[in-house]
């Protein structure tokens, strides 16, 4: 979780800082001179390494122009701004930059402030170190937390198990019911199919009996002559006429006058109208 603390620095922020409180406990400072000398050594070593690298690469410039300022043997500063063989510019040949002079009381104050700062920083660092130990994974607090978490996890697992059992019982009941419903459905469909099969059989039987009845009316080969003779002997006249009253007169040569009025056949639709 990143907790970002936004900081606004105003242009004149450094005007408003009140003088530092005086600290009664002052411990002797570490010799700064030795520290600075060690730093110089490091820089010189680094620059030497860079020289070798740029030589090996066959670069256009063998000297590292972009390197930071570094001092040689504590007396001469090399900025690598121009090649080593280029002398000091003529205009700058006899220029002596003015020494910055810090007032004595200011030096005393700065020393005091730095001593105080170092002491406070040591305390802060120690506090943060202890804090990190306290929060570390192997600390007592973390172990306790882990044990609590584990217990909670076990509790949740147990609950999950119980819940699973409950749901399993419900599921079993449901599956049993579904199975029974399936059985019933299959039984019903079987019955329906049997009924349909029976119906189909009946229909087929019916068809067979009908056909058999029809077959009886067929004219056999040996009866053919007789049937023809019968047909010739009994000619059937299919012609008929209809008059405006709806009477039907069958036959081609029938005359309306030859049939008495009460015997006349009527059209079915006309007969129903009456």
């Amino acid at each position: 979780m990143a907790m970002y603390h936004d900081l606004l620095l105003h242009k004149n922020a450094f005007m408003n800082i009140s003088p530092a409180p005086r600290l009664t406990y002052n411990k002797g400072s570490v010799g700064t001179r030795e520290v600075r000398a060690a730093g110089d050594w490091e820089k010189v070593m680094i620059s030497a390494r860079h020289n070798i690298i740029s030589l090996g690469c066959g670069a256009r410039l063998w000297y590292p122009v972009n390197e930071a300022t570094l001092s040689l043997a504590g007396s001469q500063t090399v900025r690598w701004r121009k090649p080593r063989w280029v002398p000091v510019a003529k205009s700058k040949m006899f220029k002596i930059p003015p020494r910055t002079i810090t007032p004595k009381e200011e030096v005393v104050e700065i020393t005091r402030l730095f001593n105080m700062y170092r002491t406070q920083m040591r305390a802060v660092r120690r506090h943060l170190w202890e804090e990190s130990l306290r929060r570390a994974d192997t600390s007592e607090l973390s172990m306790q937390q882990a044990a609590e978490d584990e217990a909670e996890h076990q509790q949740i697992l147990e609950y999950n198990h119980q819940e699973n059992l409950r749901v399993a019982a419900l599921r079993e009941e449901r599956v049993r019911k579904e199975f029974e419903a399936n059985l019933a459905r299959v039984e019903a469909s079987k019955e329906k199919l049997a009924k349909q099969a029976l119906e189909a059989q009946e229909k087929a039987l019916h068809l067979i009996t009908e056909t058999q009845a029809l077959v009886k009316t067929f004219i056999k080969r040996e009866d053919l002559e007789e049937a023809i003779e019968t047909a010739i002997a009994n000619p059937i006249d299919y012609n008929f006429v209809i008059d405006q009253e709806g009477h039907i007169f069958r036959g081609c040569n029938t005359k309306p006058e030859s049939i008495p009025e009460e015997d006349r056949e009527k059209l079915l639709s006309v007969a129903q109208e009456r």
Partner: protein
Amino acid sequence: MLFPASGGARFGLRSTKCIRFAKHGCTNRPFFHIVVMEKRKPRQGHVIEQLGTYDPLANAFGEKLCSINLERTSHWIGQGALISNSCAVLLGLSGLLPLHPTSYMLAWRNRKAAEEKSQKEETS
């Protein structure tokens, strides 16, 4: 492959770490990431973790914006990471660390300059 600016460098367990600026931005527009790096790594080397940002150019309201992840910063200080002077000043102003003496120095020098300027205006 490009290395993420927000951290992930490999580092030795007992190597010296340092909280300092890594310069970003471009020509005439500096921008700094506040990062944890191994002390011997170059300024633009791989960072272990980014702790915040610092924009040294004042915005339209005359503010220089700085963001710091205090949680991680305090963690790394607790782990014994060194702090560069400029970062120590910022952390002092943020209230995590005691105010850096440089801040006091700058303040009294600014005050003195302002005083002298006002006196000059009065006399002239």
